[in-house]
């Protein structure tokens, strides 16, 4: 927790959205200075996930067929969903579901590091918020793997963080969509 106060995320980058019919997919790419093996462990091991991810896992996600309960951190009501890992080719491809979201991770060796790509479907109204949230999560992940953990910044922790609001607005601009402001206002319809 040494440098959380100084943490300031960079500008929105590395994200795309894709629309297939009614289904929107958020695609995030991040280059990390750590090997695919280290990144794989951080993506699958519950003790690592607890340090950076927006959910807790009650088991390891690194085995095909494993059934794991994921708890969304900071949701306004307890939100626990069960998933079965559908693909786990260490340290390259990982697929499972987080609630109704498909989660597909790809890890590519890049120099001494890893190019990490996440495909996840998410409602288009919240896609910029999702991109902002994952942006911060990936920064936290990078620090964790670099040996300077900040502690995870998710849910309400992320939203009260000014940089999250800036990222939300930047991603919304990049995607050409309107994103809800925080705090939420009653929907106008």
């Amino acid at each position, binding site marked *: 927790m040494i440098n959380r106060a100084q943490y300031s995320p960079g500008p929105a980058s590395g994200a795309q959205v894709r629309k297939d019919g009614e289904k929107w997919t958020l695609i995030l790419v991040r280059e990390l200075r750590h090997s695919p093996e280290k990144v794989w462990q951080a993506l699958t091991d519950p003790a690592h996930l607890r340090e950076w991810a927006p959910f807790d896992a009650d088991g390891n996600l690194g085995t095909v067929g494993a059934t794991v309960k994921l708890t*969304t951190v900071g949701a*306004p009501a307890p*939100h626990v969903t069960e998933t079965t890992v559908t693909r786990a080719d260490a340290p390259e491809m990982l697929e499972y579901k*987080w*609630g*109704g979201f498909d989660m597909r991770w790809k890890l590519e060796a890049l120099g001494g590091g890893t190019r990490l790509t996440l495909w996840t479907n998410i409602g288009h109204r919240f896609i910029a918020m999702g991109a902002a949230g994952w942006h911060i999560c990936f920064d936290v992940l990078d620090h964790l793997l670099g040996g300077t953990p900040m502690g995870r910044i998710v*849910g309400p922790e992320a939203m009260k963080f000014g940089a999250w609001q800036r990222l939300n607005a930047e991603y919304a601009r990049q995607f050409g969509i309107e994103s809800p402001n925080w705090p939420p206002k009653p929907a106008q319809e």
Partner: protein
Amino acid sequence: MKIKVTSVYVDDQDKALRFYTEVLGFAKKTDFSQGPYRWLTVASPEEPDGTELQLALNNNPAAKAYQQALFQQSQPAAMFFTDDVQADYERMKARGAEFTMPPKDVTGSKIAMLKDTCGNVIQVTQLMRW
């Protein structure tokens, strides 16, 4: 302390939003997500700042069993008040609502029951005046 929100479990939040707005006539109030969790409420246009109804995704096996048992017994999962149950019955029927009980006089009120298309029976109640 106030009663500001109450919940029904639904099997599909988008479908529920369509039914509770287009068929029942409520208005969307709050729609917010965190990860796959979605907080979705509607309110009555007659009382926009009144009690909200949360349309909560039922992904909880215990809640599903409870919901199905209530549904099979035709026990309403939620109850709404109106000044004219017959008029609401006609209006909702015209929009495709499936009633399990057309307007009926019971002690102290006239009630009707319909399916919400999302796993529940709901009741519309008109209190008798005398």
